[in-house]
């Protein structure tokens, strides 16, 4: 069996884009980020979708983007928006995909990376508490869809990328 399409899931700030690009550099697989997938699926960028139809429209666009992601030609790596796992149908779709890797980060790591959460209304007024609570509440959903977990807290993006590649190798043997 060849390498599957690697789908990176995890909270915002876990490093899905950074690690995704690092994987692509190391392996030569193509990398497609969520913004690009949303554009392919809807013909618009995420900010355009948000401006035109609000958060609900954006969620729908991200579901469309996920459909594109699971049917990418392998080998490829894609980042999946943090909130996709909140949707039952999207979780079902992710669960039947073989290459889902959860980039798991402790809340302190996420808080450091996300900072003030500017432009993210759902994190206000107290981003640190919001992130900690979101992370604990979503954990079960990420666990439900992931085929492997890579803890990113004490790893550089390069190290995390290598850990993902190793994990993917072990379940595509």
């Amino acid at each position: 069996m060849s390498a599957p399409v690697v789908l990176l899931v995890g909270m915002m700030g876990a490093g899905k884009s950074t690690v995704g690009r690092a994987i692509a550099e190391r392996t030569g697989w193509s990398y497609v980020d969520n913004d690009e997938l949303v554009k392919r699926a809807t013909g618009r960028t995420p900010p355009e979708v948000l401006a035109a139809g609000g958060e609900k429209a954006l969620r729908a666009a991200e579901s469309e983007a996920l459909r594109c992601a699971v049917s990418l030609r392998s080998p490829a790596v894609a980042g999946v928006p943090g909130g996709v796992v909140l949707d039952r149908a999207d979780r079902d779709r992710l669960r039947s995909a073989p290459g889902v890797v959860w980039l798991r980060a402790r809340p302190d790591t996420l808080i450091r990376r996300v900072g003030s959460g500017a432009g993210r209304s759902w994190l206000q007024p107290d981003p640190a508490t919001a992130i900690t609570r979101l992370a604990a509440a979503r954990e079960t959903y990420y666990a439900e869809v992931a085929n492997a977990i890579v803890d990113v807290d004490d790893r550089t993006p390069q190290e995390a990328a290598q850990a993902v590649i190793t994990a993917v190798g072990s379940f595509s043997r």
Partner: protein
Amino acid sequence: MADFGGWDMPIEYAGGGVVKEHLAVREAVGVFDVSHLGKVAVRGRGAVDYVNRTLSNDLRRITPGQAQYTLCCDSATGGVIDDLIAYLHGGDAVFLVPNAANAGEVVRRLSLAAPAQIEVRDLHEDYGVVAVQGPRSAALLRRLGLPADGEYMSFAVARWRGHDLVVCRTGYTGEHGYELLPGRTDAITLWDALLDAGQELGVRPCGLGARDTLRTEMGYPLHGQDLSPDITPVQARCEWAVGWDKPEYWGRGALLAERAAGPHRTLWGLESLERAIPRPHMVVRSTEGEELGQVTSGTFSPTRRVGIALALLSARAGLAAGDQVVVDVRGRPAPMRVVKPPFVSSSVR
């Protein structure tokens, strides 16, 4: 009634039955008396660090007021002595809820290893536990004046009829729900109040039968079947309950080695392709007849209306979701499809 870890427990309630009780939880609200669950307080200077050095999950992932699923593994083998929920309190205290049958062993191990200033106290009979689960559970709590708005895996101490009552946003059904911890003298009053107030919401008292079908649909492991001292979290898809980068926890060496080498068996879901219902200990074979392992949990899924199972299957076969296997159902070969659990998508938030 059945003996369960030394407690007399109802399998189902009169006027209900497993399927009715199960559907009440999926569609309305069900109430479970799970007071048999253990309750253990670990406190004293350094208690949180101590629990973090022993149990598998990483308490640094949560803050006071939140709960976490974690494992007590054997320090030598990494096998699971028990799975439990840890509630993180402020002021260096952790409250643990282990399984009834394993509570004594968890207390024994934690007490034995604890530094002098840390107290490990078995409070098994000091509290009741009443689980309120289902899409109308929040409405039922509000009828009793209890806080219902906490995030999943958070908890708060409320007052109810003059006493403290811990309200946790946790459960074992995959539905939005709560586990309430009243003091032992309030448990029966609380139970009656919930059933009274829930009449119009379609509440049902639920027994162990529905508890088992609900959790099996979610792929949640049951200790003694899908988890045991002979089964590690790496085999049972519980890697997410391990803080892999922690410098110390019971079983660390064995678990890291097994994770690196790849487990020799993995817990898979099986979905019956015909009418057969898989049950624990039934043998699973490949379509070519090679023995792959055994069913660890199996039942009829009232939601999906099909037989479902969890089964520990050999890694040698290189199974993937979608493959077909054969379960020996009382001498008859029953074809089943391999799936990644859960069988029913959860809606815990």
